[in-house]
């Protein structure tokens, strides 16, 4: 860059220095919640998570009302809905055409994508932490209403929970980047793996493949404590298919696509 600066003394340093990735990440996090769609999605996730606790206190057998029990069930709403936030983070730039401003202000598109991915991981971690806190409250309440109230929780359940959230959020961002169209990406995100599950379940020849590639099946093990290495391997293979491939193709597409 020095050569460039020598040639063009009129360029201020403020305009040549790249925008720090931390700053971009903060902006992407803010963009997740500063629209009605994003804000309501977060509110719905919070209410749905609280509802899982309420359902358990109201209807689950007393012995299931433990800290771990509340936590495992409480992760479900965010596992389903947070990826939609990830999808919106990518597709919103194109359907709302804000990519024009975003990439005009930050021409290094890779940095914006990186910031979106980091923001996605952070929100996944934050939602798991929130689910954990909510489960603690629910456990106290549950114990008061005659629940088991046990506080023992297997450490693996927590960080497997984090990994589960991260995988699905990144999968959402990947589908969003690949399709760059909100309704299409949301439908594809939910329908394509489901169709694959149905095919894998009905067609015998696909059975073994389905055990490895069906991400809805392989990640079920993640909500049970102490996953085996075999289960991890299956998660890794299915994540490669449903997360890494769409992400790689999607990033390639966003980097090259003409913005207008």
């Amino acid at each position: 860059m020095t050569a460039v600066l020598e040639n063009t003394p009129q360029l201020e340093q403020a305009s040549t220095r790249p925008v720090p990735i931390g700053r971009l990440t903060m902006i992407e996090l803010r963009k997740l919640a500063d629209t009605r769609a994003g804000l309501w999605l977060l509110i719905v996730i919070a209410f749905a998570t609280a509802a899982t606790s309420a359902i358990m206190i109201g209807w689950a057998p007393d012995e299931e009302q433990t800290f771990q029990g509340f936590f495992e069930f409480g992760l479900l709403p965010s596992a389903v809905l947070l990826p939609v936030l990830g999808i919106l983070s990518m597709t919103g730039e194109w359907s709302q055409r804000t990519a024009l401003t975003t990439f005009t202000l930050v021409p290094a598109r890779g940095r914006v994508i990186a910031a979106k991915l980091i923001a996605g991981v952070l929100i996944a971690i934050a939602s798991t932490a929130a689910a954990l806190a909510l489960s603690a409250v629910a456990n106290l309440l549950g114990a008061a209403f005659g629940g088991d109230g046990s506080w023992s929780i297997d450490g693996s359940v927590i960080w497997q929970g984090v990994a589960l959230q991260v995988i699905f959020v990144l999968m959402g961002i990947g589908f969003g980047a690949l399709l760059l169209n909100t309704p299409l990406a949301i439908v594809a995100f939910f329908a394509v793996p489901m169709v694959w599950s149905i095919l894998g379940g009905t067609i015998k020849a696909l059975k073994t493949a389905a055990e490895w590639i069906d991400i809805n099946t392989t990640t079920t093990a993640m909500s049970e404590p102490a996953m085996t290495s075999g289960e991890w391997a299956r998660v890794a293979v299915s994540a490669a298919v449903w997360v890494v491939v769409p992400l790689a193709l999607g990033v390639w597409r966003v980097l090259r696509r003409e913005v207008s």
Partner: protein
Amino acid sequence: MITVEHLTKRYGNHPAVDNVSFSCEPGTVTGFLGPNGAGKSTTMRMICGLTPPTAGTATVSGVPYRRLGNPGRHVGVLLDASAQHAGRTGREVLSLAALTMGVDTREVPRTLDRVGLNATAAKRRVRAYSLGMRQRLGLALALLGDPAVLILDEPANGLDPEGIFWMRGLLRDFADRGGTVLLSSHLLREVEAVADHLVVIGGGRVVAQGDKAELLAATGTLVRALDPAALDLVLKRAGLAGTKTTDGGVVVQAGAEIIGRAAADAGLVLLELRPAGSGGLEQMFLTLTAGDSVKEAVR
């Protein structure tokens, strides 16, 4: 300073922009003129690194736009005022940009005020904005980083006459303080009032460019006769090419004396014989770009 050299963009076989070269100097306003679909926006998007060119280069202050780490602090860009998230408030749009550029967020209300968006408008979502308000918001976005260069695509679209007048003053002032302005429009009159230089583009090619005064001077002579049919005949016989204006006049690429003599020889009564000025430029503009709008409709 903006330098565009041999910029070309082809979509399949269709050349949207064909070997376009021009430069914009500090302290001047350059009007980028052409009908819709002439390639103005594509050229501007290529300057801003949003569209990869098929050939040629564009630099801003000597640097390709994409090499600027934080371009907002040097170049203010408004390419499409309606390209904003409908669900964000005007203030939020500017705040996000301020955070990105590393500009103090206290500049946000100040800049909104500068473009004529008050506190009530700032709190409203962009969905509720009129096109004129969106243009003002876009202009605020461009001005926020205190840039030295402005690139504005059709900024007067949707502004009321008072707004257009205000914007002209703002751009003039910006250039007078040493800034570089590239401003596109499909309306000659709109640009004529503020531009120092003109670049006229039609069908993806530059058809005329230069100092506004020179361009206006070189646009030929307007002649109007009592008997238009006879004038046609005389001009044809004298080998003078002319294009008809809408009010019955003819713009001829020749001096007043030559036309006057030809008319006198034929005993023709002339009602008007004068430098064509902006009317001539408009005529040239229409002629050079004739048929483009038809093509655009088909494309």
